């Protein structure tokens, strides 16, 4: 296959950029609902795309099932691309790369019997069920997929990548009288079946947390100091800021470019934010992006200043900046677009306990239920929280909503702790491409004088 791809990648003769992706996937999805097997799905999928950027016109993209007739498809795409109307785009070219990325996992889920997978889920469902009669509904969801991908392009590159992904999720719903509470958590990794084994504590914890929420009073809201835990801080920086750093958001909008000009003081001077697709082993990592560009660490905010943004070959061309290895696709059915990989707030120097010590009256907001962003405005719901009184963590509270203006909020961060950690669960959606793994990372972060709850703005 490599030889054939290499031959095909040489077909463009009139300055076209050609990219070929072939993908083969096997997957399993199982969901238990209240101890009943609600969904079992297993299958295989094989397909690819051919994409041409013709410098005299624009992009031609064709996606197809199977790996057949590649030469005809490439020739057809090269010919057809010349018939398109004129565009103003372009692509940054790279050096030829030949590489094979293989992954070895400890316990390969492809060779597990379906029975082993199903049995494990029933075992977890039993643990959830046994926790309390107040648990009215519980879900155990399992997903694995193994992809083999070839990427070839007219730089002369041929790259093959193996990409496993496995996840397990628990959802518990507890009910008492008219109060109904839900909590969910899980694990996800680029690993083998070992990732989802031995998660009894997580299952018990999810059930217990749903029960705790029944007892917790709602947070009454108001202006106070807020400490975000690493999960919520990570999601915040991904959703509220990271998406604005994706260059396709502004590459054809000059006014937005002025609003997000590099060098602008945008946040508190202790804030550093980066995206890094080259971190070893994370779900958002790969040595190359889906356009065959090397991934790297890209600082988005340094010492409070906007210093960079995320690029594909095309947005880098349009904005005359360097590609950052952030062109990603969810599958062969879509062209790569600018996406985050692993996005994080860099760790600071403050001890975690010191973050709390200086808070007289405040809130510790933990984990994440959901949220919306509309450009500079955001609203996030924390999964739960704790009051902070005189520097000490106190009573658990629920219904914690943080809402506000991104730029004002970024300037209210006054302390960043040194306890950095990554969160791997969850996926990101953009346009029609949903479920892309985009881990987030952060230490504990403190915001001063923030209005919480009541959906008022910060």
């Amino acid at each position, binding site marked *: 296959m490599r030889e054939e791809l290499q031959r095909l990648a040489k077909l463009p003769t009139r300055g076209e950029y050609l990219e070929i992706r072939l993908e083969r996937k096997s997957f399993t999805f199982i969901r238990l609902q209240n101890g*009943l097997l609600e969904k*079992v799905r297993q299958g295989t999928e094989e397909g690819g795309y051919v994409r041409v950027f013709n410098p005299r016109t624009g992009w031609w993209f*064709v996606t197809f099932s199977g790996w057949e007739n590649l030469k005809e498809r490439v020739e057809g795409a090269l010919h057809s691309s010349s018939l398109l109307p004129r565009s103003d785009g372009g692509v940054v070219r790279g050096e030829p790369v030949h590489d094979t990325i293989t992954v070895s996992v400890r316990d390969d889920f492809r060779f597990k019997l379906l029975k082993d997978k199903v049995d494990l889920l029933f075992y977890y469902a039993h643990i959830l069920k046994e926790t309390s009669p107040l648990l009215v509904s519980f879900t155990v969801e399992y997903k694995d997929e193994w992809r083999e991908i070839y990427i070839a392009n007219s730089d002369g590159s041929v790259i093959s990548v193996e990409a496993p992904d496995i996840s397990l999720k628990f959802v518990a719903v507890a009910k008492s009288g008219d109060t109904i509470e839900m909590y969910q958590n899980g694990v996800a990794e680029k690993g083998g079946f070992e990732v989802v084994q031995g998660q009894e504590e997580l299952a018990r914890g999810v059930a217990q947390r749903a029960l705790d929420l029944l007892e917790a009073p709602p947070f009454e809201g108001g202006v106070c100091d807020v400490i975000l835990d690493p999960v919520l801080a990570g999601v915040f920086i991904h959703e509220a800021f990271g998406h604005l750093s994706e260059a396709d958001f502004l590459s*054809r*909008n000059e*006014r937005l470019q002025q609003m997000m000009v590099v060098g602008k003081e945008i946040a508190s001077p202790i804030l550093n934010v980066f995206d890094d697709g080259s971190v070893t082993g994370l779900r958002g990592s790969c040595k190359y992006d889906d356009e065959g560009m090397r991934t790297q660490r890209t600082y988005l905010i340094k010492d409070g200043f906007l210093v960079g943004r995320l690029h594909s070959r095309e947005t880098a061309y349009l904005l005359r900046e360097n590609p950052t290895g952030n062109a990603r696709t969810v599958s062969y059915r879509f*062209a790569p677009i600018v996406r985050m990989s692993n996005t994080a707030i860099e760790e600071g120097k403050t001890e975690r306990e010191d973050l709390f010590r200086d808070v007289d009256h405040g809130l510790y907001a933990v984990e994440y239920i959901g949220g*919306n962003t509309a450009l500079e405005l955001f609203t996030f719901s924390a999964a739960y929280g704790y009051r902070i009184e005189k520097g000490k963590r106190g009573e658990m509270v629920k219904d914690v909503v943080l809402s506000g203006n991104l730029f004002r909020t970024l300037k209210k961060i006054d302390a960043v702790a040194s306890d950095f950690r990554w969160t791997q669960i969850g996926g990101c959606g953009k346009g029609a491409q949903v479920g892309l793994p985009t881990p987030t990372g952060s230490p504990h972060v403190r915001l001063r004088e923030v209005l919480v709850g009541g959906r008022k703005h910060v």
Partner: protein
Amino acid sequence: MFEVMNLLKKNGLQGDLFTRTVHEKNVEYEGGVFKGYRVEETTGYGLRVIRQDGKIGFYASNCPMEGEKLFEKALEMSEFGEGALFEIPSYPSILEWKNFVDPRVENIDVRDMVELAEYIVSRIREEYPEVLVNLEITAGKEERSLYNHHEEKLNFARTFFQVAVVVNHTAEDDILEIYAERSWGNRDVDVEDLLQELKRKIDYSKKLCTIQSGKYPIIFTPQGALVLLYPLFYGLNGKNIVFGRSLLGDKFGKVIFSSLFSLLEVSHEPWTLGACPFDDEGVVTQKEKCIVEKGRLESGFFDLWSAARLQKTPCGNGFRTSYQDLPEPGFGTLRIKNGLRDRETLVEELEEGLIVDSVLGLGQSNIASGAFSCGVQLGFYVKGGEIQGRVKNVMINGNVYHALQNIKELSRDDRWVYGKMRLPYILVEPIEIEA
């Protein structure tokens, strides 16, 4: 591959093989400039088997596979499958339906699509040179087929044509995005009507208004009405009813909404994108099915699986999201019965309130309970019967099941949303607004 049905028959098993093939073309413009052309040619299939003990197995793929191997894969899965209380139906042998295939869409040339896109961009830019136009035109054909263990076969094909436009206006401290779409099964998409809608929205958006938090009447546009329908669809879903996740399970036959509210499924409506003579399980759809009649809940969405468990009659509501999925409860084409007076009259009689056209965060609240809590992405403030301008940083909160009780009026004029829901303007009072 189709010899698999013979294998099923020989082994005394039931089953169906579903295939879906899509040919799609798409032209994209960004910032008013041609960006690219996309072609999709994909196909795939899913085999469902039901063993004699009722257990269901399923296997999906898009790789060609020997019938025997496919049979084994699906059978392996059936070991753990849910027990079916239903049987795979025998397909109707004579049905007078036709495919909804428009050769003007099927054979559309990239140049035709570009020409239309250029026309739309230039019309908007002519009048509003300060805005950026992002645009997608999609044309394609979808073919579905079903084979069952009786070795019967069903086929259905349709074309689709969609135009979606996002107009962006960025000012110093304000970013405005306005969305409008038209989707239909043939080439007769009314582009002038789409341009009119965009013009109206841009003109009304020029002025920014503020509104105080409180309870107000709200007019949901056909697009905005999805705020009310999304949680309702969740409640009507037979599977959610089986699992106790719906509040509607014990409400059939009861009046639970405003008597002005009637919801129909009209899946034989020609050229709509939900039109289909049978669902993805081979169950014949109905010409007109009443879901809500004058506020009384008459029916829901039941596939074979949920209909059997709830002892309902399946009537063509089993649909598959993709070939990789087992059928789930869904719908073809829907219609909310319209009212008597024009939307202009509804606005004229509004003392103070909001028109909601699009929101952020649809379905992110606890939709099982009917709750919605959405940021208004595009909404207009009405005072003294006149649209004053656009509102910003406003949320609407409430519960769909209460809101549908509080419908005050529906407009006479309605329009198709996503080519499969014909919806009027809906006036609801009161709804809580937080600003």
